[in-house]
């Protein structure tokens, strides 16, 4: 049984200007110890998917359909109290913005200590020692001293390490990392990615990595799901995505990356803009921008189909 399986998830936002279908039929599964990358451009539903898994979609957003199973238990059937016990303890989250993700009025050590106490109980003294140990595990130098610092006294990289320590303190089975390195500069990004990979391997923890950065995906992920307009359009092992992408959108994304063989040529881009998520329900959402689109693309929405072993594509015209 997969650790987490999401089936047919639909999360819609009922706004005054119409229903925004932020997530519209997303299905995927994560095995124990697996790193799945969820890749897409801004506003395609990556973060709403992760918030849906935590059942923390802000109003007016609402999960209108689907199943989210953690070790077979449906999270959507749980009452508020049972769901609260899942958060943090079994599924933890790391956010994008390390500058504002820690409470400014408590020291870093205090905050991790509180998380340890909430999860394991015991004495404060012991929990504090655990917090320092956690900071040491995420490679914060002189953790005993840094634990006494307030968040504003730490650099962005250290804060993100502290955030990771905070998330991992209760020993979650699944870590959802929502753009964990986007706000950091490149050298720190590499360090944080190394750290995540090491912690993931040591703990055998599953990771759902949400990003728009294909470089980050290549570093860390085992499998990748490409999401477009609230739908998964392609899902495959990471090597296949880079070596033999099938969906025209994935191909377009990869062509946008600089490559030594195209040195000197201008970078390409995908023509057009993502569709209005309030709009038409018929047809493939990518059809208006797709160079391969045929008449039927505009009428029938293609289903995700396994075109190669482990390689799923939602495109009937994709060249196999």
């Amino acid at each position, binding site marked *: 049984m997969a650790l987490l399986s999401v089936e047919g998830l639909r999360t819609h936002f009922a706004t005054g200007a119409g229903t925004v279908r932020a997530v519209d039929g997303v299905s995927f599964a994560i095995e124990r110890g697996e790193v799945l990358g969820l890749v897409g451009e801004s506003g395609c539903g990556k973060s709403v998917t992760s918030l849906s898994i935590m059942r*923390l979609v802000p109003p007016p957003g609402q999960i209108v359909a689907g199943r989210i199973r953690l070790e077979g238990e449906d999270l959507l059937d749980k009452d508020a109290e049972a769901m609260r016990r899942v958060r943090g303890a079994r599924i933890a*989250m790391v956010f994008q913005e390390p500058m504002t993700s*820690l409470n*400014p*009025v408590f020291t870093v050590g205090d905050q991790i200590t509180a*998380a340890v106490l*909430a999860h394991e109980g015991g004495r404060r003294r012991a929990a504090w020692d655990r917090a320092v140990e956690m900071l040491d595990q995420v490679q914060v*130098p002189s953790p005993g001293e*840094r634990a006494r610092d307030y968040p504003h006294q730490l650099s962005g990289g250290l804060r993100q390490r502290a955030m990771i320590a905070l998330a991992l303190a209760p020993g979650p089975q699944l870590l959802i990392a929502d753009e964990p390195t986007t706000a950091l500069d490149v050298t720190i990004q590499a360090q944080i990615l190394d750290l995540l990979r090491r912690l993931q391997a040591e703990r055998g923890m599953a990771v759902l990595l949400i990003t728009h950065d294909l470089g980050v995906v290549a570093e860390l992920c085992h499998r990748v799901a490409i999401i477009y307009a609230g739908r998964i359009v392609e899902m495959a092992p990471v090597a296949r995505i880079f070596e033999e992408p099938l969906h025209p959108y994935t191909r377009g994304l990869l062509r946008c990356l600089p490559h030594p063989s195209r040195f000197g040529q201008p970078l390409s881009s995908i023509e057009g803009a993502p569709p209005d998520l309030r709009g038409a329900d018929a047809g493939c959402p990518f059809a208006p921008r797709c160079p391969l689109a045929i008449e039927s693309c505009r009428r029938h929405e293609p289903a995700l189909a396994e075109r190669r072993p482990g390689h799923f594509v939602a495109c009937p015209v994709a060249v196999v």
Partner: protein
Amino acid sequence: MSVAATMLPVVARPRRRLSFRAAFGLGVLLLIGGSAVFAPQLAPWDPARQMLTKRLRPPMWQARGLREHPLGTDHLGRDILSRILHGGRISLGVGLTAVTLSALIGVTLGLLAGFFGGRADALIMRIVDVFLAIPYILLAMGVVFALGPSLLNVILVMGATRWVQFARIVRADVLSIREREFVAGARARGNRPLRLLLRHVLPNALTPIIVVATLELAFMIIYESALSFLGLGVQPPTPTWGWMLADGRNYVATAWWLATFPGLAIMLTVLAVNLLGDWLRDTLDPRLKV
């Protein structure tokens, strides 16, 4: 992080010790508070004792002044110094308890309104609007008329009419704090709503609460005097600063000391509280200390 360590001294370190202003505020407040607490021991006279042969005597350094009445006597021959010392007990006590009460009500309702939003917010803020629409003195008059004037009733009425000040400020602050990422993070770590409120939202809203509390303490002292002036506050002969001020205003042209000394006492107290409040606000903000 040796780089960060070597860079630290470049940043000016805000002083953690008391500034001169804060020390002044604290000193004055301790003096006033101490003299209020020990008023029975310090006061040379019974504050209610009338000595009609020594009516309206000026302070002792003036021509008709008497050595045994350093700040003079009022129109009933009562010793002003003794009345100020005793009045401080009432004024400060009433002010502090009323501010505490109104902060408790206002902060609680403000937190609930701002954090939960929706119907709770609409309901609480409409109640706030009602309180703001009716002049608070009028409201207080009505309530005290109904319940009868007593020390406890005065405190209750003052707390129950001024809580809106706290509620509005706290709500506004909470509206922005609850959107910050560390609150979302705490929620994603499975914290209960009550814990989110008390540990993550409230401590970050403390600064304006302290500022409002110091301003309100000053206001409450004046408020009490206004109620006393209308005959709805603490009843004579119990001395309060506000009542002395109101009472002395009839004699301002001929006997300035009646209103001046209680007025000075109020002013010094308010000034001291504000100076201390500023310091407290700066000290409680971790971003301002290294």
